């Protein structure tokens, strides 16, 4: 999955518009329950168990940061 496709997942799950993939989720208008919904969607989409504290690292708390986290945790980082 490339960044554009991942941004669409964020938009679909969180009902927001991703203007810049590096923008923190909170600044895109993603609230806390939406963030949980996004982590749930990532688990279902990519088939690995997300660390509940992953987003405590500010570097991961954006669409681009989350996709880097996904790639680091999936067997085929080039895409599914």
């Amino acid at each position, binding site marked *: 999955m490339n960044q554009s496709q991942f941004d669409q997942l964020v938009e679909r799950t969180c*009902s927001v518009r991703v203007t810049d993939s590096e923008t923190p989720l909170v600044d895109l208008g993603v*609230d806390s329950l*939406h*963030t949980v*919904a996004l982590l*749930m*969607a990532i688990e*279902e989409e990519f088939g690995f168990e997300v660390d*509940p504290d992953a987003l405590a690292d500010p570097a991961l708390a954006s669409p681009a940061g989350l996709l880097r986290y996904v790639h680091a945790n999936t067997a085929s980082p080039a895409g599914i």
Partner: protein
Amino acid sequence: MWTDTRPPAELPKLFERGADVISLAGGLPDLGVLPLDEISAQLGRLVRLGGRLALQYTTPHVAKSLVPAVADLMGREGGRADADNLIPTSGSQMGLTAVALALGTPGDTILTQTPAYPGATAAFRTAGLLPHAAPEDAEGLDPAGLRRVVTELRAAGRTVRLLYTNPTFQNPTGATLAVPRRAEVLAACRELDLLLVEDNPYGLLGFDGTTTTLFQALDPERVVYLGTFSKIFAPGLRSGWIAAPAHLRYDLARVAEIISLSPSALAQGALAAYHSRSGWDTLIDRYRDSYRERCTLMADALDAELGTDSPWHWQRPDGGFYLWLRHRDRADAGPYARAAADRGVSVVPGGHFSIDGEHAHGLRLCFSNVPRKKITEAVGRLSAALTELPSERRELAEVAG
């Protein structure tokens, strides 16, 4: 207590079950259609990834993540929902209480479509309101009658500001008010400055998928809409909403917060996750299929057992949970319901749905939750009670006389 009312505002004990009693009484959904494995996996994820949030107090709002799920449901009947007009409830029973407390003043009259859901009249009475039967004709709520009755009540010094209706697949009759009539009722409400309270738990349960345009869609500033996830997902999550006109939102939200402090973030998160992943179509279709099948089995059995000569009249519903029998000669259905209970089938006599003793000749049969293979047996037991009781009464009268 000051909330004690005459008649007592109590709910019938609909969800109790005895041995070998087939219940056609309580309006329970058929949860056999729920994809429990999927829901279980999502709940597990929700708690593991967001438990500290989902199990915490939250703010008295419909969560942003849940708004699309509500908007999807209301949009199917032309209604409008957005984050600004929604107030969370623990289901429409809380919505009814919040509406009565926030928009009424003790002593006010609330016009109520009858026969009425007993939980609604109990909520109104508990808030100190006085339910008064809304005028109806053969097509349902009657706009000309509304003008007349409201004028008479106001001339008698009564304050009348609210009209309550359950317009689609009504509990207990199964009846649906046609859209042109809805527009006429709203025109009367505007003239009379009445707010319309639209209680719509069953609107998406038309057996063939047909939906009817909401009052809320026709005039969102005149209608307080009560929605619930209880009938299209599950009642155990205790989750619903009020869609309110902008000028009433604050008052309703304040009372909702007083009643419950905050909604369940766990329930809201679970519903949002389900909708986001699966949408509503499949589940609603499964519910419709289940109820269509059960209703057909029950109606066919009633046709076979009662035939056309019976004093009990009824119409096949097009959706919802209920089938409503009425006695041609307006005989009190209470003794028939007790006779049915003696034969091992429970139904609800019409008096439970009355404001002032009317509709006592009705019987509500709920088909939504009875096991398919027991429907014919249930109708057989009921029919025996309905047809044999008068002669038994005669015998008793002869013995006594």
